[in-house]
């Protein structure tokens, strides 16, 4: 581009004429996406440490197929191909991290294709999808291959008391409670990303600090979990697990930090985020306590995703100065 200095200022000159505002926060879609990818690094590391190097293949497969599917569809639709914006890669990565260790690579690939194809591109691509693409992929896999996706491996440094079943399954079917320190460190069975609560928290807090993740969603989820599961726990501590266990076990934290917070599929209003977070916890407690499945983070997020358009509509802020009853 020609710069101002190259021309005499008295001449008529043409430069950057875009209209106001002329300043910008400096964020961009791809920068945001790569930041989130980066925030998952601790969880990836934990997965490799606890479940072995094979898991890197799952991650690579998921990412490659996600990015490939995205590019292919964009090519067919004659849209700009956005290989490197990081969002498809992120979907692949997140999908991989919700899968069980040693999961089949071909099924992983199917999950990635579905996540991008049915979860994202069919709605028009980035920004338009209603449901969390990675979770659409995972839900599809869970319905397609229910046995394989609930087959768990023992973590590498498992102490004897740790079984290959996940803490939630151990509780649901055998009323066995895993201690919180194992849950926090990650020395328990479960899907790749969820094992180490510590790693998840490091990444999540990083995202909150840089301002990508809106704290309202994780916080409202945790408050909701304390409240809803606390009710049951107070009623009968023998039969129902404590809120702390509920929060640390399974993929609750992973979902709260990385998946419920997906911008595209969560509400845009602050009030809406509270409703969304509390709603996820409520549905989750119902599924975990009354449902047939031990875990329901994926389902509860998907279900609340479906309500997001309505939440946005009914929590539209009151226009500044408008009378209360004038709100449309």
């Amino acid at each position, binding site marked *: 581009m020609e*710069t101002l200095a190259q021309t005499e200022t008295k001449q008529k000159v043409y430069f950057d*004429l*875009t209209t106001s505002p002329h*300043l910008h926060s400096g964020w961009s879609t791809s920068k945001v996406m790569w930041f989130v990818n980066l925030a998952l690094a601790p969880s990836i590391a934990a997965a490799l440490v606890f479940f072995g190097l094979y898991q890197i293949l799952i991650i690579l497969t998921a990412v490659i197929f996600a990015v490939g599917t995205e590019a292919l569809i964009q090519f067919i639709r004659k849209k700009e191909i956005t290989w490197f914006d990081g969002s498809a890669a992120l979907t692949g990565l997140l999908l991989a991290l919700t899968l069980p260790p040693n999961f089949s690579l071909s099924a992983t690939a199917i999950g990635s294709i579905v996540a991008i194809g049915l979860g994202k591109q069919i709605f*028009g691509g*980035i920004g338009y999808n209603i449901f969390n693409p990675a979770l659409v992929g995972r839900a599809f896999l869970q319905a397609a291959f229910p046995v394989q996706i609930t087959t768990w491996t023992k973590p590498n440094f498992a102490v004897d008391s740790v079984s290959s079943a996940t803490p939630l399954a151990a509780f649901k079917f055998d009323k066995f409670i895993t201690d919180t320190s194992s849950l926090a460190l990650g020395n328990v069975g479960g899907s790749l990303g969820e094992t180490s609560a510590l790693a998840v928290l490091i990444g999540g807090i990083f995202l909150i600090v840089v301002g990508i993740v809106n704290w309202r969603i994780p916080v409202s989820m945790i408050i909701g979990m304390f409240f809803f599961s606390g009710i049951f726990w107070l009623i009968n501590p023998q039969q129902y697990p404590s809120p702390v266990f509920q929060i640390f076990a399974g993929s609750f934290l992973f979902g709260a930090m990385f998946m419920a917070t997906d911008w595209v599929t969560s509400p845009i209003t602050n009030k809406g985020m509270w409703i969304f977070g509390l709603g996820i916890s409520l549905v989750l407690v119902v599924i975990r306590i009354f449902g047939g499945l031990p875990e329901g983070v994926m389902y509860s997020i998907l279900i609340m995703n479906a309500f997001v358009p309505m939440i946005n509509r009914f929590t539209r802020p009151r226009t500044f100065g408008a009378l209360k009853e004038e709100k*449309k």
Partner: protein
Amino acid sequence: MAISTFNGGIHPPEYKELTENCAFEIMPSPEEIILPVSQHLGKDAQPVVKKGDEVFAGQLVAKAEGFISAPIHSSVTGKVLSIGKEVTPSGFPKDSIIIKTDKNSSAEKILLPPLDPETITPDEIRQRVAEAGIVGQGGAAFPTYVKLSPPKDKQIDVVILNGCECEPYLTRDYRFMIERPDDLIEGFKLILKALGVNRGVIGIENNKPEAIRILSEKVKSHSGLEVISLKTKYPQGAEKMLIKAVTGREVPPGKLPMDVGAVIQNIGTALAIYDAIVKGEVLITAALTVSGKGIKNPKNLLVPVGTPIHDVIDYCGGVTEDAVKIVVGGPMMGVAQFDLHAPVLKATSGILVLTKEEVEKSPETPCLRCGQCVGACPLNLVPTKLARYSQLQKYEEAEGADITVCMECGTCAYTCPANIPLVQWIRLGKQKVLQMQRERVTN
């Protein structure tokens, strides 16, 4: 003291350090000046000189037409070269009077008779403000005497002096506040007198502690006046936001500040009133900040109204290698210039030369529904929806979502990580909706 403010808003980097310590310099008259007949909101002024006429600095060259209008005076002594369409900072050509400066003339500038601020009546104040062609210095350039003449049925109980200067880079109002605090307070009291109001508040963002300190000290000896420190946040200086922060009142959509009993004036406006009454000066000098990383010597300047932008830039040492954009006004609401012949106007508050690095934007993507714009919009609108409705030409939905309330502050576009030109779309949609509403009335 709890810091008053409003909901939403943003905090862009301030860049005030570039000029905040530059005292005003007086820029000499340029070779020629360009005076568009429209430098204010409302009807164009009517030229009263013709080609070839000799004019003096301070002489009336175009008279006000109708109630909402303002007269225009020459800022130099010289000869009318021509009257015709010339480009203006808004980008649209307007009828303008071009005056060639007579460098050799020793003529003094014409002054009106000074008036005594102690004995002056409200009517006299209004008349002088109108005569001096004073328009709002806060950006909108609304004729000030109109604001000082509220309809009888509106009860005004507070006047707020807007010392926020929330746009980045600009330090003009700040310099005024620390260089001329006594005149400022005198001017403010004249405004209060004109409106018959006892309570006056000076609202200043807390990133200007020096100004707050000086003015707080000075107002102690004036009953009814106070200084309020406000949170540093764009757009704190927008009328509705300032009223909310100072009084807690919200101006309803489609209403004016006076509907909630408030009048807002800019710091510069108060000084212009002071100058007009106490010194008899008409408004022929624009005070402005010349800043940005693309200008060699950033300055605060007092410039004859009508000076072409390129003269101002040359006076400040010209532009740097990487300058790419020239903006008149602040970086959030100002207008990018394509023709540097455009002149400085009465209400011009700044000229910014921005470099690539400052204006760099990433490619646009579809909305990610991150909600940043929703949280930031000070008027509680949903910018992403407004812009999308406008894009898809769903103007009825846009109207239902209060698109016409938008003040185009640019807050939403600043925050948008998807780099969507939200304000541009909203501006377009707003025009369509207003047009639709007008048609509805005529039908």
